[in-house]
């Protein structure tokens, strides 16, 4: 670059100027040169501004005195509500405005957990349940089994501990349960069209709910005698009592769903017939088959798939492992479920072997921790090599040490070491994934199936190769979480709605934003008051609970739940909740916050900002979880009385266009830069 070449070179010593001369003449010359420089400077345009005419602009990040946008007890927070076909737009809009609460953003179905906590804290528990049910069709179920991505994104992680969003779902359901018959009435059928849903798992139910709400007739078919899909067959009963599931599905039936159980589509009713009878068909059949590994010995007696094992454990409470040593292969949640079930159906010893190291295990850490509590042994960094058999009967498994599971790019590419170990076992359960089994289902239709036995589905619109046939749930996404399936159900319902209304399927449809939230280190909870701590979920005693299928988590009491809901910071709502973190962060103790924490009458009673102490460091507004506390563009902070420098709640809530600092309430002095509109 030319500029770089012109850059002056640093001299050897700065003591001498280049071409410097001594003497009177040189001195006079330097003075003349000085005059030439000042003349030139006087001729150039001044770099200051003509004040009233060329107004000073203030940078958007200006740290002026603080103001509040809204306050607890005065302003409602916006509840995220909307028909499913417009919900993504709502979320996307909030996301673009940087006003999407992390719990909502991190949830695959964007359940309004913030609204739930708000309503529960306001003692409107049933409303809270119904708000959640809009996006999460089975709050009672998910309140027990969800892997709660909301809680891991919760901003409270940064301060102390996350809000117990999942137990609150459960609590809301327990409250709702008492009066649920009053609250259920069928949705009016406003559309003449009907939709058939195959499978009654979470995704199918979510789609059914959306479609019922939109006024369609919805007919559902379920293979098993009881509805619920994988929730019914796969989830162990100690985590999910079946009556909860059935009750919630009953509610949907009450909303107008025509549910046919014990009917296997493809066998009892051909799919082609359903496609003719209904305007649209949604396949939500899930994954039915456990994967096995292509290693020697898997055909031996004593090798079982996880789904089969769970099915028999759940329904028969007997899986043929009583008194036997069980080895579970896999490190996922299903593997942990299998291991814990195996203990409950009487296995003498349960081991869990996985490729990953302890820290990399794909299952949720709290699951493995609970399993270890109950007596499961985890063998990490071991890859299955061969099933050892004796007379076609399993006696153990040879495992090879695994050095690394993923390559540099993060793809699955395990590297094995030389060492092998033999693990003795009588039963080996493979919990390494599930696969779809749909050949019977699609027989007689034009649905395309890929070479690996998978249905060909568009991953964003959930359409299949046949017009009018849609798919959702794990059959599309592969093995995943219940809440993820529910999210696909909503998307599929949107597609079906648009299809039936004759709208283009993609068109102006907004894709769900996938925000990335910072990972927070576990907060240092030393020195934190107990009132700020998360409600502890009461648990059954590990040694007792491992023997039967009673629930492990016992649920929150009403008092605990209310207190927990009040802990919610209502992130990004721009309504101050009086969380006091600004006061705690302030290095000068310039802020004093007090609030009343009574259900139904929660309000902020005091918010004082002492500007005489404020050092304008901006830490308080930076960490404000609700963004209610923000800087204003004020800078002429002159007051005619010292007392006026203590801003009380009313002052903090005034529109920040001219504080009383200016001497004229609410009016900017002439020439005072007006804050930008979005700031105001």
């Amino acid at each position, binding site marked *: 670059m030319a500029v770089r070449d012109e850059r002056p070179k640093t001299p050897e010593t700065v003591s001498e100027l280049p071409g410097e001369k001594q003497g009177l003449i040189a001195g006079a010359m330097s003075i003349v040169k000085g005059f030439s420089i000042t003349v030139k400077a006087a001729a150039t345009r001044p770099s200051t501004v003509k004040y009233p005419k060329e107004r000073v602009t203030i940078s958007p990040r200006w740290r002026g005195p603080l103001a509040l946008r809204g306050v607890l007890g005065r302003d409602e927070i916006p509840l995220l509500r909307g028909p499913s076909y417009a919900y993504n737009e709502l979320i996307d809009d909030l996301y673009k405005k940087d006003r999407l609460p992390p719990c909502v953003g991190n949830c695959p179905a964007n359940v309004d957990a913030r609204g739930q906590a708000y309503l529960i804290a306001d003692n409107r528990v049933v409303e809270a349940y119904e708000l959640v049910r809009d996006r999460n069709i089975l709050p009672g179920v998910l309140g027990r089994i969800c892997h709660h991505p909301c809680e891991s994104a919760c901003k409270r992680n940064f301060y102390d501990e996350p809000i117990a969003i999942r137990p609150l779902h459960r609590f809301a359901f327990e409250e709702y349960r008492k009066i649920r018959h009053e609250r259920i009435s069928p949705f009016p059928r406003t559309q003449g069209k009907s939709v058939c849903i195959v499978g009654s798992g979470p995704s199918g139910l979510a789609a059914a709910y959306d479609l019922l709400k939109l006024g369609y007739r919805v007919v559902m078919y379920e293979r098993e005698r009881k509805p619920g899909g994988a929730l019914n067959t796969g989830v162990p009963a100690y985590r999910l009592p079946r009556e909860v599931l059935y009750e919630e599905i009953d509610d949907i039936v009450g909303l107008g769903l025509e549910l046919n159980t014990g009917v296997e589509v493809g066998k009892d009713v051909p799919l082609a017939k359903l496609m003719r009878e209904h305007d649209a068909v949604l396949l939500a059949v899930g994954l039915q088959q456990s994967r096995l590994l292509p290693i020697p010995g898997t055909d031996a007696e004593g090798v079982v798939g996880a789904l089969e094992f769970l099915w028999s454990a759940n329904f028969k409470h007997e899986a043929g492992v009583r008194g036997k040593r069980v080895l579970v292969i896999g490190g996922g949640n299903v593997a942990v479920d299998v291991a814990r079930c195996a203990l409950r159906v009487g296995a003498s010893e349960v081991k869990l072997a996985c490729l990953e190291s302890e820290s990399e295990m794909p299952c949720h850490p709290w699951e493995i921790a609970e399993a270890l509590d109950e007596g499961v042994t985890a063998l990490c960094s071991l890859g299955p090599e061969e099933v050892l058999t004796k007379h076609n009967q399993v006696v153990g498994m040879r495992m090879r040490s695994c050095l690394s599971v993923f390559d540099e790019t993060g793809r699955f590419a395990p590297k094995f070491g030389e060492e092998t170990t033999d693990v003795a076992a009588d039963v080996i359960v493979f919990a390494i994934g599930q696969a779809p089994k749909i050949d019977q289902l699609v027989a007689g239709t034009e649905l395309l199936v890929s070479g690996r036995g998978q249905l060909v589905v568009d991953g964003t619109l959930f359409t299949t190769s046949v017009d009018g046939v849609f798919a959702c749930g794990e059959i599309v996404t592969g093995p995943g979480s219940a809440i993820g399936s529910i999210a696909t159900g909503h998307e599929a319902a949107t597609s079906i709605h648009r299809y039936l209304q004759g709208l283009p399927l993609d068109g102006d449809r907004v894709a769900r934003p996938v925000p990335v939230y910072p990972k927070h280190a576990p907060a240092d909870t030393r*020195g*934190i*008051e107990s009132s700020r701590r998360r409600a502890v979920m009461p648990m059954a005693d590990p040694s007792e609970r491992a023997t039967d299928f009673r629930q492990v988590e016992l649920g929150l009491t009403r008092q605990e739940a209310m207190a927990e809901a009040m802990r919610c910071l209502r992130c990004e709502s721009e309504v101050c909740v009086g969380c006091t973190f600004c006061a*705690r962060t302030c290095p000068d*103790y310039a802020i004093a916050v007090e609030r009343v924490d009574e259900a139904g009458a929660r309000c902020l009673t005091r918010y004082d900002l002492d500007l005489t102490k404020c050092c304008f460091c901006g830490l308080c507004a930076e960490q404000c979880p609700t963004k209610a506390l923000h800087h204003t563009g004020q800078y002429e902070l002159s007051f005619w009385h010292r007392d006026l420098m203590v801003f009380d709640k009313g002052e903090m809530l005034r529109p920040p266009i001219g504080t009383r600092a200016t001497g004229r309430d609410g009016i900017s002095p002439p020439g005072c830069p007006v804050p930008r509109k979005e700031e105001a």
Partner: protein
Amino acid sequence: MRIEELRERVCAMYPDLCPLFSIEFGDGTIAVPLERIHSALADLKDMGFDRLGMVTAVDRGEDFELVYRLQSRTLRAGMFVKTMVPRSDPKIPSVCDLWPAANWQEREVYDLFGVVFEGHPDLRRILLPDDWVGHPLRKDYQDERIIRRPDYI
């Protein structure tokens, strides 16, 4: 110079203090008994530590930990020299004769901790007024004007 080299040179000079040489947070630190502090600092100065970066103290309860930070231009290294001064009799020889830079630094430590530097040419308070009572950076310093911080974090 790398710290290991520095460690070797210091150890060669003071074999008995070698176990007290620790490397923590990327800096070499040597703990020296109080009675040898002046000679040790003088030897280190001869070794090439021509700059006295700072002199400070830490209130460790029974003792004050005096911390000298040395910096060398020729060795391209920095190191700490630490010594314990008993709280009951906080006296330590001054190093003003080695580095004039210690003059104000020691006055500051005297001012804020009350450690007396023997042989200092002008040991007076420096930051606080001459009539101030007490030494504020001591952990047991009391003053009714101190605003209590809230207990919560």
